[in-house]
């Protein structure tokens, strides 16, 4: 199976800006997830992060917080999330990442987590509350299994820190476009470009930019700077407002 980094390199041959999309497992429902994912696949999305809902989503903004909460309330389990992942990675051509909070992995055991992720066809994971200092064992297990941890680089990271993060980065890096939580608009400008450039200095893996990517302009802005745009809240907002039709139109415009 192809790893994240080579997959991105492969896809980049035909495209100047890849797209990563986001889905909260079980919200509004697993059926809806599949509908969303189908639209994403159709639109040509390259990677999807499946968020495993957590009761304390402290790095998320209001929309995802509610999504996490509702999903858990309706009974979503880790098993179901892995089942969705297995089905999705089988059925669609995009690659699938696990996104969530570290406790989900910690509670089942890091080794089990990596094995189940691999078994479900996932190629990597994003755990925003797991800093590299705490990630040693997990990263090693992942490396052994050919699973790639996505590391986040941020506007507040010093050069020294970026160097550390760069050294640990595998598959791709998630550049956080601004301070704050997911969900609000980011003013795409010189700051973001400067961030991408600083990230580039410290890593060779592809760079995706996320947090607030929500419009065609954002996409155009990122093109040529980032390898990938990461679309999160914006898609969920559209789905909630105007369903499948809206989402289809949204991705069509974004990826035009």
């Amino acid at each position: 199976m192809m790893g994240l980094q080579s997959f991105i390199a492969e896809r980049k041959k035909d495209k100047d800006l890849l797209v990563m999309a986001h889905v909260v497992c079980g919200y509004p429902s697993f059926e809806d997830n599949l509908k969303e994912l189908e639209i994403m696949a159709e639109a040509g999305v390259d990677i999807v992060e499946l968020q495993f809902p957590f009761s304390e989503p402290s790095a998320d903004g209001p929309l995802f917080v509610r999504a996490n909460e509702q999903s858990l309330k309706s009974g979503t389990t880790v098993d179901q999330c892995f089942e969705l992942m297995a089905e999705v990675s089988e059925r669609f051509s995009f690659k699938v990442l696990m996104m969530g909070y570290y406790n989900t992995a910690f509670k089942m055991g890091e080794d089990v987590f990596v094995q189940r992720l691999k078994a479900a066809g996932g190629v990597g994971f994003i755990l925003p509350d797991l800093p590299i200092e705490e990630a040693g064992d997990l990263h090693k297990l992942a490396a052994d299994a050919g699973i790639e941890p996505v590391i986040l680089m941020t506007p507040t990271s010093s050069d020294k820190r970026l160097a550390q993060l760069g050294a640990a980065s595998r598959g791709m890096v998630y550049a956080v476009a601004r301070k704050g939580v997911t969900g609000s608009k980011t003013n795409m400008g010189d700051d973001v470009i400067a961030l991408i450039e600083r990230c580039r200095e410290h890593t060779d893996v592809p760079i995706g930019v996320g947090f607030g990517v929500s419009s065609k302009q954002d996409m155009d802005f990122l093109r040529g700077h980032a390898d990938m745009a990461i679309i999160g809240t914006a898609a969920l907002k559209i789905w909630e407002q105007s369903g499948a039709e809206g989402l289809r139109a949204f991705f069509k415009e974004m990826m035009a």
Partner: protein
Amino acid sequence: MDIFDFSDGREGYYGEYGGVFLPEILHATIEELLECFRECKADPKFWQEYVTLLQNYSGRPTPLTHLENLSRELGGAQIYAKRDDLNHTGSHKVNNVMGQGLITQRLGKKRVIAETGAGQHGFATATMAAKFGFDCKIYMGAVDVARQRPNVFWMENLGAEVIAVEDGQKTLKDAVNECMRDWVTNMADTHYILGTACGPHPFPEMVSWFQSIIGLEAREQIIKQAGRLPDRVFACVGGGSNAMGLFQGFIDEPNIELVGCEAGGEGVGSYMHSARLAYDDASVGVAQGYKTYFLQNDEGNMNETHSVAAGLDYIGVNPIFSHLHDTGRVRFEAATDAEVKETLKLTMRTEGLIPALESTHGFVVALKEAAKMRKDEIVLVNMSGRGDKDIFTIADALDDAKWKSFISGKADQYRAEKK
């Protein structure tokens, strides 16, 4: 034993508990905080400034009171209470808050945020912010805002903005999450005044350090008043800050038993409690920035917790206690809501003291054990706060008919005024 000597292990770890589990964006902020805290801790002048501030503003040292009546009535050990209820704002929370106020000043920050459950920590933080001239935002679960209106009223009048958090269970843990969200956005000018010895390193160490003033004083006082050190030391454990504070005065004495008293709520097996270490329902996990015992399900999602005392009603416990529980240095017991109500009544009538519902948990266990001890043994319990802030809760708990009719009358009066 210096629990904060990390030279043998990993910085910020107590056994396998603690650490820093925060979004990368806060890395620099928490490093800056750690560095600032290390400087302060190494600087005797800082501690002196801290003590002076508390003396002149908050009434430290708080007294140690010999509960002669209760000791006589129970016929066992001599019971002493450390009176942190006499602090300005009514609880030990102010110690930590004033200390972090000095830290905030040193960091050059102008804004503070804090989570609060019962409202005590928010009240203390709003007070400190008024005194230091900081902007202040307090996050409080919507359920707590509704039930703890008096504290909200004071926080607002002290100039703080109080945000009712509508996520999750709408209680303390959700307020913590909301603080994290604010902090990842505003860390440049904002310090997060965490209210207990939980959260990412260096908070458990820092909060414990500030609260150690309780134990320092108590140790000196009990030697002076009782002639020797106590045999057992009790404190309630929410996040664990008041208990850490008191215990640090005695932890190096192997013969002194330290007992943490958690919220047993409706008791063992009810799953309506907040006993992480005294009962067997919690397991190790990672949330809200640190690794410790949490009341969570098999998949790592947090359970609902319960206590008559809002300040103990929390999913996690400070990582130091998780470690000291493993090593056996601290014993953990739980007091149920029902026991708390009875002991509160007893303490009021017998000693003229109104411990906060939180603190009463410590009294429950202390009195129970004191009764079985010898008359020449000594028991020390932390009265971490005063209960008059809890009038709505206590009146409800005691089902006071006159109070209820007073409230109805007040409501009628307000309705009439509106017309």
